[in-house]
């Protein structure tokens, strides 16, 4: 197995006014392809920042970040957008579906950045919704779905483009236990059956236990 995420000496410093606030300090991380890893830690420990760096939403202040064979460190804003569209599937705590689009339209969004024809896009969106068990809710708007269903639509959106890595930021944070378990089962299925590498930030120990590896982050350092 080769490393799909390789961070070397990564630091990230934010500024509150002129005062520097170091969030990640000289951090090294390797994630193998096909792994399912959970990232835990107290609030403010830098979990989300680390996830954002891996997902190409942010850039490290120093150090190097190689993800899916690409060095993100010196990429332009446009190149990073391209990288995200191509390699990353996002799953957010608050689902982040666009409320005016139907489930199918939300899932189709990432495909609008590809050269696929309209009918191919629709077929793939339908397939992704079938994988998450919501084929019969294609025409529903987010407000017509339960929280668990919304998160499943978000997962369908995350996998529709066949990304290399799924990046999940508290994917069960807003869900009841039953829905949370369904989502975790789905993530497990994506990891085992579809060989997706999954990186998940979570506060929920039950969620973390489902992952193959649990990493703990505290004060910007991996424990």
């Amino acid at each position, binding site marked *: 197995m080769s490393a799909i995420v390789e961070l070397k000496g990564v630091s990230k410093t934010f500024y509150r006014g002129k005062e520097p606030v170091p969030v990640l300090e000289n951090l090294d991380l390797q994630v193998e392809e096909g792994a399912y890893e959970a990232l835990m830690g107290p609030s403010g420990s830098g979990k989300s920042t680390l996830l954002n760096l891996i997902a190409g939403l942010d850039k490290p202040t120093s150090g190097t970040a190689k993800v899916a064979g690409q060095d993100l460190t010196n990429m332009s804003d446009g190149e990073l957008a391209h990288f995200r569209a191509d390699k990353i599937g996002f799953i*957010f705590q608050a689902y982040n579906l666009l*409320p005016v689009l139907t489930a199918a*339209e939300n899932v189709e969004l990432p495909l609008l950045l590809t050269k696929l024809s309209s009918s191919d896009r629709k077929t793939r969106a339908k397939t992704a919704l079938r994988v998450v068990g919501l084929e019969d809710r294609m025409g529903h708007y987010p407000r017509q779905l339960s929280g668990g269903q919304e998160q499943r639509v978000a997962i369908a959106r995350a996998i529709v483009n066949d990304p290399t890595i799924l990046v999940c930021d508290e994917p069960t944070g807003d869900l009841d236990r039953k829905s949370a378990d369904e989502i975790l089962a789905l993530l497990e299925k994506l990891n085992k059956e579809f060989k997706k590498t999954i990186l998940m930030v979570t506060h929920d120990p039950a969620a973390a236990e489902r992952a193959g590896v649990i990493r703990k982050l505290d004060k910007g350092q991996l424990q």
Partner: protein
Amino acid sequence: MIPLAYNLRNLTVRKTTTAAAAFGLGLVVFIVASVMMLSNGVRAATKRSTDPNVAIVLRKGSNAEMESGIDEQSVGLIAATPGVAHASDGRPDAVGELVVVVLLDKVGGGFSNVQLRGVPDNAMAFRPSMKIVEGRAAQPGTDEAIVGKAIRGRFKGLDLGESFEMRKNRPIKIVGVFEDNGSSYESEIWGDTNVIRATFGRQSIVSSVRVRLESPDKFDAFKANVEANRQLNVSAQRETEWAVKQTQGTALFLSALGFVIAFFFSVGAIIGAMITMHATVAQRQREIGTLRALGFSRLQILTSFLIESVILALAGGAVGAAASLLMSLKRISMMNFQTWSELSFKFEPTPQILITALIVAAVMGILGGFFPAIRAARINPVVAMRGG
């Protein structure tokens, strides 16, 4: 590209704010379209009474019939110039007419100048589009007159069977009403040349001579001929070109006035659209952040919000343009600065006017949406998704 449905549905979700911003933009489009229709109406009213075969001869240096004076004896000479067509009775197809203005009381208060045209007996035959719609033609050599449909009944004494005083104790009776496809003649009173000459002390004078040429290409030779005769001291113009000049000032004035008003309204409307779009961007920060995270570029976000703003403006613009079409049912009347007399005309829409009005709407949409769209494009996805 971010799907258009995203923009359309977002606009319909926020019905009240969308409607308020669209109303402001629509109002500007309404004003712009109305002003253009009005300006076009003035031009069309004068142009409609023209014939490409007809040349108008005025005293050298005069541009309006009112300023011009030609010796009556010259009418025959001008009419006999080679290239002038002949009427069915064998006479040259030409008319020498005298134009004066009379100050008349308006029905409902106020007063205004009305153009009074002294015409020879072949004046109506010379203008085949003109017809009597009520009453009868005036008898030559009498104190009878006919009035144009546009001003009939709008001034005291200007209705069928009524009479008005051209000068003190010189009444003239309206015996007929004529129409001429909405041309500027419909804002005139026509009486007998000799009677009007005598009344106004303009013996042996006509204001203009119109001749029908055998064909439009005879004009250059005709012009050269009459202008070469120094005794005549006249200049000839194609009637079509002359007509445009007659209303140029008024049309320009209306356009300028309208556009100044439209400009100030548009500033307000653009600011309104800008506020709406800024609010939209603020409300949709998380959505924008999500789109950015999914891989949509800054340019795609910018374009999407600009498109949304343009759709908003076009929706308002379409309503404004449609409302302006209702104005074409209205006839209005104002002073033509070239003739200093009342000209009655309609708002005249054309496809070009409506297209221009919609382009104005789109431009306002772009201007109003530009800064909010830039703001949307600059949103940091990490920050946007953390809040809101």
